[in-house]
């Protein structure tokens, strides 16, 4: 049988009408909101906990457990949807917002009701103009239909929702950075604890969840935790949207049950490599996830546990495929430029470390690397781990600590010969600008 997707969240994404409120309602929209508003909020939290749902934004933390950290009182609290989607390789949230804005809105109203929040924000990265417009239109439709505002569907529950536009900074995807940004400040992360669930936006308890996580809540209510848990594996329940990109014939977003073989993703749904090319490496969970070589990729399963066992992570579900026509030194250098650019600079190990990694990889690329630079890369990366306010520093170190040992021959060849083993040349920089300045 041909390898297929499991279209659970994306069942109706092929229908253009699903974007508007009428088309959405025709296909099961807002039914679960009505159902949820008749439930006890705690029962919804319990159901989400029992479903095993884990955050789809990167860390994979239990959603029900996170909600459980909120103080048990009547203090005002916020729900903040993380639609910053900056992890290189990730483009699933954009599709969700543009094709099914009401799915997210419905999931958010149900989640808001469960946690007792009267106000939610969707923080969208500034470049996503179309997502922002689509969401703003959909929110207006939801107000008109009585799904937002005062006394929603006669339940006595009030909830307001608004969109907040980011302004270009990967670090605002980190939840405390996002809260700073929403407060109208520099998007700098803050030391945890206190966790946002205790002290977040304007120092009030705040739940931050990814777009996909919040959309799933509707389906947990629709089918029940017991049914939801049957999809996926024991500890990685449900389906997940994966963004597949890089050197594959058919890139795109694909929804599959967790535990799906990576090989079937790359060679089945993704159509494999271009003719004449071989698979060299796969980054399975966004640019921060340690890379897998071809042999590892062929046996990896796309779930939290299996990828952790293989020394990498599921992250945001962004799968970046690299074929044998590419130079791994150049790929690593490309990512180091990204992290150097995006470090917010608050913590010395991250600020200095990302700078060094960028500089050293660039020096190797230019053909001027020394043999000791390879050890230096590993040492710098090692010193960046577990010492900083947020996880960006680790996220920059992990690619180094996997690319270098797994593709050491390419790094050694480059410093020895002054040129790429694959491409046969050196580079002046790792971007066009640097090559020509």
């Amino acid at each position, binding site marked *: 049988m041909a390898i297929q997707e499991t279209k659970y969240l994306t069942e109706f994404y092929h229908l253009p009408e699903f974007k508007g409120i009428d088309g959405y309602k025709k296909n099961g929209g807002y039914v679960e909101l009505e159902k949820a508003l008749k439930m006890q909020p705690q029962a919804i939290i319990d159901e989400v906990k029992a479903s095993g749902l884990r955050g789809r934004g990167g860390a994979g933390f239990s959603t029900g457990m996170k909600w459980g950290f909120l103080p048990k009182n009547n203090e005002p609290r916020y729900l903040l949807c993380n639609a910053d989607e900056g992890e*290189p390789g990730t*483009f699933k949230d954009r599709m969700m917002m543009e094709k099914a804005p009401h799915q997210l809105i419905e999931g958010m109203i149900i989640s808001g009701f469960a946690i007792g929040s009267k106000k939610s924000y969707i923080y969208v990265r500034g470049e996503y103009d179309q997502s922002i417009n689509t969401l703003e239109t959909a929110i207006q439709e939801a107000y008109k239909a009585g799904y937002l505002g005062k006394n929603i569907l006669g339940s006595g529950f009030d909830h307001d929702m608004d969109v907040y536009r980011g302004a270009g900074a990967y670090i605002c995807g980190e939840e405390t950075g996002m809260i700073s940004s929403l407060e109208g400040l520099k998007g700098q992360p803050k030391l945890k604890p206190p966790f946002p669930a205790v002290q977040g936006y304007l120092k009030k308890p705040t739940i931050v969840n990814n777009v996909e996580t919040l959309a799933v809540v509707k389906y947990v209510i629709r089918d029940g935790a017991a049914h939801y848990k049957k999809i996926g594996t024991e500890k990685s329940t449900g389906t997940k949207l994966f963004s597949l990109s890089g050197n594959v014939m058919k890139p795109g977003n694909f929804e599959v049950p967790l535990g799906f073989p990576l090989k079937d993703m790359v060679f089945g749904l993704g159509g494999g490599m271009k003719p004449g090319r071989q698979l060299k490496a796969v980054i399975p969970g966004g640019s921060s996830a340690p890379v897998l070589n071809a042999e590892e990729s062929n046996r990896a399963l796309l779930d939290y546990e299996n990828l952790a066992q293989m020394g990498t992570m599921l992250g945001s579900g962004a799968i970046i495929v690299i074929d044998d026509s590419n130079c791994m030194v150049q790929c690593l250098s490309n990512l180091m430029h990204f992290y150097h650019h995006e470090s917010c600079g608050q913590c010395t190990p991250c600020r200095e470390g990302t700078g060094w990694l960028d500089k050293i990889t660039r020096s190797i690329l230019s053909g001027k690397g020394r043999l000791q630079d390879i050890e230096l890369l590993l040492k710098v990366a090692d010193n960046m781990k577990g010492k900083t306010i947020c996880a960006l520093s680790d996220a920059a170190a992990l690619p180094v600590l996997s690319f270098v040992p797994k593709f050491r021959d390419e790094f050694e060849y480059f410093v020895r010969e002054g040129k790429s083993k694959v491409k046969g040349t050196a580079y002046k920089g790792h971007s066009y600008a640097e090559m020509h300045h």
Partner: protein
Amino acid sequence: MFQLSSEGKQQVLNELKRYESKQSAVLPALYIGQRENKGFITPAVIQELSRVMEIPESQINEVFTFYTMYNKKNVGKYHVQVCRTLSCMLNGAEELVGHLCEQLNTRVDQMTTDGRFTISEVECLGSCGTAPMMQIGDKYFENLTPESAMNLLRTMK
């Protein structure tokens, strides 16, 4: 001297009331200021926003310098932002930027002499499945080749 139009000023005042805290209006206000100042922000824009919002200049300036979507200098009528990050690189982003610069006889981040274009390299724009890609203004252009991108720019007057 820079002054917001009466419409722009009203928009800033609306943003001040829109969020739970006044300070949250700084990011949207900077977008309004940028739009009304031909696409970039100067100290005069910050001064005007500070006056209208009654928020200290230093606080607005700090935000302005932190985020990449607020332009620090004049950019061409069309700001062509080509994604340079991994998935786009794997699909030919460097060749794309190289071709555009060559054809327009310019360099990255340098406005063309006719003031029409500035070509920039930016980080992942969340469009990696349709790489290589670029953003011009609010719009994404995806699945590009060096030639198709250049043909597109030729239509922009």
